[in-house]
């Protein structure tokens, strides 16, 4: 039982650590934005995303 | 302290206290009685049957802060078994009994029945039968009669306050309280004696100089 509590502690530590890293880099898997190709401001190629019906 | 030769076999026997006039000769098992006139023979004792009790003559310990040494024993039997009563001599000369039955120990001391003033005990002392389950109030505490039976002496050793010869039969009543208090009333004819005390463990008594038993590790207390 001690081991499971220890492992859970590690798990929570990892989660909190992950959150801290995500927080520092303002990272979120729920964002819509994707990194696009580098280029001039115009003429951007769009990938994915919802469109009208 | 008085050391004399056994009137039966001549082996030296020691009487430690005038309050304990009886002594079983270690050599010939004669029951000796000490009186002003000298030492007489009260009867012939029996050999103790084999048992694996951890107590022996010479076992020492402390009870409620007072040191004691085991100096005698009476082995009693009843219909359904037998047990030991070890006589403990305390510093200052008082004595108590370390009862040993079914692997449990209890330390009891004689008290005058008049001081106890229990109607139930008085009734039993006067000859009424003791009924298991009946209650007796002693010092404001309720004790229940656990059992009542005829018991007989099988054998004895060491120093004793009375003559305990094989076949001596008395009526013995055990009482117990929820707190672990244990008491007993013993009756022979018109006479009755009351013993009051409680359950103890060898650890609690810091018992030492226990009997060595082959193949078992002797615990070290204290």
């Amino acid at each position, binding site marked *: 039982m*001690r081991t499971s*509590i220890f492992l*859970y*502690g590690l*798990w*929570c*530590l990892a*989660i*909190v650590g992950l*959150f*801290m890293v*995500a*927080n*520092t880099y*303002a*990272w*979120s*898997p*729920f*964002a*819509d*934005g*994707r*990194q*696009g*190709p580098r280029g001039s*401001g*115009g003429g*951007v190629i*769009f990938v*994915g*995303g*919802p*469109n009208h*019906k | 302290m008085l050391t004399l030769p056994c009137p039966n076999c001549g082996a030296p026997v020691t009487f430690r206290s005038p309050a304990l006039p009886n002594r079983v000769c270690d050599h010939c098992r004669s029951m000796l009685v000490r009186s002003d006139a000298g030492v007489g023979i009260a009867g012939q004792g029996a050999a103790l*049957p*084999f*048992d*694996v009790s*951890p107590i022996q003559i010479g076992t020492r310990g402390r009870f409620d802060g007072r040191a004691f040494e085991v100096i005698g024993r009476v082995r009693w039997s009843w219909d*359904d*078994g037998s047990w030991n009563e070890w006589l403990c001599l305390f510093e200052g000369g008082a004595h108590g009994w370390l009862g040993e039955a*079914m*692997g*449990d120990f*209890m330390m009891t001391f004689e008290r005058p029945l008049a001081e106890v003033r229990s109607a139930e005990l008085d009734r039993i002392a006067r000859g009424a039968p003791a009924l*298991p389950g009946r209650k007796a109030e002693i010092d404001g505490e309720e004790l229940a009669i656990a*059992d009542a039976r005829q018991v007989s002496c099988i054998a004895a050793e060491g120093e004793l306050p009375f003559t305990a010869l094989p076949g001596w039969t008395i009526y013995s009543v055990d009482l117990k309280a929820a707190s*672990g208090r244990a008491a007993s009333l013993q009756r022979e004819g018109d006479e009755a004696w009351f013993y009051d005390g409680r359950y103890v463990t*060898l650890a609690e008594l810091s018992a*030492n100089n*226990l009997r*060595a*038993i*082959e*193949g*078992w*590790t*002797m*615990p070290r207390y204290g």
Partner: protein
Amino acid sequence: MADAAVAQPAAKALSCPNCGGTVTLRAAGYSVTVACEYCASILDVSQPEVRLVTRYNEKASRLAIPLGTRGTLDGTEWEVVGWMARDDSGYPWEEFLLFNPYHGYRWLIEQRGGWSFGEQLTRTPEGSWGGLKVDGESYKPFFADGTARVTDVVGEFYWRVKRGDTVRTDDWVRPGAMLSREADGKEVNWSRSRWVPAATIAAAFGVAAGGKPWPPLPHQPSPALPFVKGGIVIAILAFLALLVGASITGGGRSLWNGSIAIAADGRDQQATVGPIELTRPYQRVRVSADVPALSNGWVDLDYTLVDRKNQASYTASKAAERYTGRDSDGDWSEGDQTAGADFAALPAGTYDLVIDYKGNNWVDPNKSSGNFWDPGAGEQTPDWRRDAVQPQVNISVRSRGGAGGGVFVLMLILIVLPLGAGFLIHARFEGARRGESDFASGGDDG
């Protein structure tokens, strides 16, 4: 050593008056009854001469732990001297009598593969039948009015025992321990047994570790409870750490607000707004678009944030669409006139927001707009092209620090998930354990 006297022998051999087998008396002086380990006959050993009480000529039961086996529990060595099989209306268990001349008797109780270590109490528990207390530990009632019958017996005992002996039993439990009251016509005995992991008994006495008893033993502690208890503390600490982490990353800041117009002809359009200054080392940015005039139409919006310094771009596509109408169920509407896009992990810099967009609306060709004399024609739908309205798209750009609420909730779920699983295991265990009780319909605590 002062007490290095000649050691007293520990056992005595006697011969069974029925089968002649050599029976070892391991608790001489205490034992009253011996059930011969060869022929199962009951012998009386309370007197110097052994007496046959009940003659049996059967092969005595083979014991999981043979007589004479020694094992050490909590630092004290015990020897198995007796064994009884008992049963309470189809609920069987076995009891091994343990002996150590210096420590007296104990019991090893086996039931459904689970083990307990028991001792006779020299005190009577305090309290009422509803709950008892011994050594400051309280016990709750579990079994009532049972009848325990001895079905088989081998070895030596300190009382007269025989097959068929019955006692009335009542049991109280607390996690890890059981309090039992056994009463026959003459006396009442109280004993306390503590649950011992099967592995401990297996290691001490060499029995094969049994399976896990199911349903659990009445006093078996829930294996998940320590995890749940410890886990709650850890989870609270982790939650607080998340809160602290979330709070130090700061709130939102408005970066740009403005409007762009949608052309009437529905062509592709592009607008560039900015500059948008991102000052935090990293941030999330939300671009919100609101088309108040949107009705029965759609607007596609493709956002691209371009870092002026290195032309790194971040893109997201969104659509705002909203349709309304009227059918047999009444008025309906679906969709949303707003379209927001979230960007995450944007490094600091000066950005332009390039919006590629295109809008259109749909007009029911069978219905004229602005039909004043027909209220049932539905809400007024402006035809962008015909009515020459120029719908505006209101754009606002805000920045936020940190990973955001979504990640916070996700992490919270990940933290709680193992704890919840542990709690479910605990609840299932306790339900099965309590289900065995004569008081099963009772309380829900524990």
